[in-house]
């Protein structure tokens, strides 16, 4: 029983992370019908933004008060990247065949990974590194924050890590704020209008370009926070972290019904729990942690084939 609860906790923690990233896929997809394949890298850049903030401004500080600054740093980095990406890579392709933005996304993804890997600690072709940043070619330890990464809580036989509480808490807060933003603000309602029918919304005087930028930025905010959460949880970050996390988060978004924000959250949590349980309870040779990713992708394919509208989606999806 303890093991079950423990894997449930692990699953929820992992799932919260997926959910935070998945929202970004879903928001952009809802408005542009575009799979922003490079969203995983936004998450990675967020983590590096937080790391940079901590190293440049508060090197060696471990007090809780650093955390908000790190989160702000993460958000600035991720939102900046997302907005630039939208402006220079995706916007010119708005009316291109669907293959074009997808290939662009792959290109951006590779580009951003390599940019961080090669140039995180120095400018291109120089060795100028005023803040003595670490080399990003391999894993970098993530700064530890006193209250958030201390020893774990022990409840009965179940261990709950402090970072896990942070991750789940961040998801809850973000979900609440997001709900408020979408349903109670003018911009949020504008987003809803654009996702229903962009052309009509434009005729109604909604600045569609601005809404699209907001959608990218919104996803990036959450991805940035997810980057911090993952850094705190795993204690290390690297330039590759976005690929698999992005793929899993996309799976989560599809699982919940892409385009549907509640769906992304639910999908993320379900996927996380499935992974945790698959590690523990699938017996025999095809169980255990080596196969958990396989099961996650099998789940993705099954959902796409048999229920492409996802768990919470109602509308049949037929996008060519």
């Amino acid at each position: 029983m303890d093991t079950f609860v423990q894997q449930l906790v692990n699953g929820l923690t992992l799932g919260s992370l997926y959910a935070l990233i998945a929202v970004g896929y879903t928001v952009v997809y809802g408005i542009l019908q575009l799979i922003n394949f490079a969203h995983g890298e936004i998450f990675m850049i967020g983590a590096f933004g937080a790391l940079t903030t901590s190293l440049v401004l508060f090197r060696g500080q471990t007090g809780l008060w650093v955390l908000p600054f790190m989160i702000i740093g993460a958000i600035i980095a991720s939102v900046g990247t997302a907005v630039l990406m939208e402006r220079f890579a995706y916007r010119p392709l708005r009316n291109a065949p669907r293959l074009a933005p997808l290939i662009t996304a792959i290109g951006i993804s590779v580009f951003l990974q390599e940019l961080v890997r090669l140039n995180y600690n120095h400018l291109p072709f120089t060795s100028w590194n005023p803040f003595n940043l670490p080399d990003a070619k391999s894993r970098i330890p993530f700064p530890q924050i006193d209250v958030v990464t201390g020893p774990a809580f022990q409840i009965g036989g179940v261990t709950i890590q402090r970072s896990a509480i942070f991750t789940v808490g961040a998801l809850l807060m973000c979900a609440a704020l997001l709900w408020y933003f979408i349903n109670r603000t003018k911009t949020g309602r504008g987003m809803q209008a654009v996702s229903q029918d962009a052309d009509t919304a434009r005729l109604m005087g909604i600045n569609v370009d601005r809404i699209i930028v907001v959608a990218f930025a919104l996803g990036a905010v959450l991805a940035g926070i997810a980057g911090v959460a993952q850094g705190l949880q795993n204690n290390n970050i690297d330039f590759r972290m976005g690929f698999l996390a992005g793929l899993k988060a996309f799976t989560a978004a599809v699982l919940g019904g892409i385009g549907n924000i509640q769906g992304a959250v639910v999908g993320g949590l379900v996927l996380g729990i499935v992974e945790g349980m698959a590690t523990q309870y699938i017996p025999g040779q095809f169980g255990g942690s080596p196969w958990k990713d396989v099961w996650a992708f099998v789940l993705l394919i099954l959902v796409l084939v048999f229920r492409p509208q996802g768990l919470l989606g109602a509308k049949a999806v037929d996008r060519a």
Partner: protein
Amino acid sequence: MIRIPNIPESVVVKHGPKAWPLGLAGAGLLIFGSLLSWSFDPQVLGDLSISFNPGALQIMAIAQGLLAIILLLADKGPLTSLGQWADTALALRALATWALLFMAIVLVAITVEAGGLVNIEPGGWIAFLGAVLLFAASRLVLPRETRDLGHARLPGWAEILVIVALMAAILFGTAYALGLSDAWEFVLFLMLVTGVVITGIRAGFLTWLGHVTTRHKHVLMLAAFAVAFLFPFTQNGSDANMSIASQVLIFAAAAMGLNIVVGLAGLLDLGYIAFLGAGAYVGATMSTSAFATIGWKPPFIVVMLVGGCVSATLGLIIGAPTLRVSGDYLAIVTLGFGEIFRLSMFNLDGNNGPNLTHGPNGVPAIPDLTFGSFNFGDTHTLLGIPLARFSNYYFLLLVLIAFIILVFARLNNSRIGRGWVAIREDEKAAEAMGVNVFGLKILAFVVGAFLAGLAGTIKAHQDVSVTPDQYIFLESAFLLAAIVLGGMGTVAGVLIGAVILKLLPEKLRFFADYRLLLFGLLLVLMMRFRPEGLVASRRRQLEFHEADEELAVRVEGDIAEVVI
């Protein structure tokens, strides 16, 4: 391509007449300067320090000068009969721009390599001055009306000769480029080739060549294969370049298979490398390697077929969801399949699942192929030229590529190919017209996978070992990039894309670390500015430029899908 703003009309009109003598003077200076010594340091750039004994780079510069003189004489002078066909003015502009760039980079190269501007001898400066003059002159030459090149014809034998000469030039150009070990020389040679090609395009030579090659399609094909076949003989027994060449061929074979799926049927497959991997694993596990896990050791031809069929079966499985999902969703499904394949190969090591693949360590020590008494690992001598291991594989792969091209081209020009185009254009309408949409999509996956599987079985033997990390997502992305870069749905495009993506990193080692970065950037820029690729299929070009009416009218004449 660098765009230089046009000079104001008034200046051109006023100084136009001076362009011709100025250009001749520039070209002359360029040639004269190139005959002199360029550098004091004999160590750099293959020794450019001996006057009247030009080094390789100097010969390149002289070639550009001569080409410029020919163009000038075609504009005004004894070659005007040529000038009425070719757009000499535009060509001259392109040539002069690239020549100037070439000389500038030469000077930079000498400065960097030898350490300081002082190392440049007067010859270098004279040649540079010549390039500058030529450039200035080229901006002043006025474009003229030219006749339609579609009507320009030579006797049949002469046209065939042109094709043969061109192919020979490609052969020796490639062999020469591969032999260059200095990165500067390599880059400069590439610049020369690019400059000449662009000059050719501007002059209309390539358009004419297009007409010629359509008139002599079979000659072109034969010549191309002859060139590919002759390539190992230029290596004089050295296997270093053949190793790269045979990798390019495997990559090209896989890319061609993917091109059926992406280029013809219009389905984006992001896990395609899994098919190559499936073939390779079949080849490895059924080989006589001590690590092979399957006891059955049939002749290789059977192994190839098994590999192809296993891949095709996977293709069928991956293709099955196309019944329900399409577009981006399909791309993600294929990506998921690719990851599942890799992870499965990673895990099937006896610890987690049956022992089939030895997990991350893969199947090493795969012996060379033998057909009868012919062992691919041995060096064989033909016409006095030794052909070593990789040359043997190269020939085998050449046969495979020929087969794949045949399949590709014939399918494209059949009822099935028309069905694929129809699906790409408007899936609903195609279905309403009785096209078997689902069947054709599956067929594309199966045929593509089968071909990749065949290539994979050879790759296993050629590579000696098969490991899961050769079949990661990035490799699928590279395959896709080869197609995107070269041009979707064309054979030549894919070959060019494969060569660029596999060869350049080998030759441009100093880029090594920035390779992937540039690759990512390239994908983004290609999609932005030339989504149809370098060698575009006419139809694909139209599909990517829906709004371009002018293009549509221009293309109409030769839409009859020339795939070569």
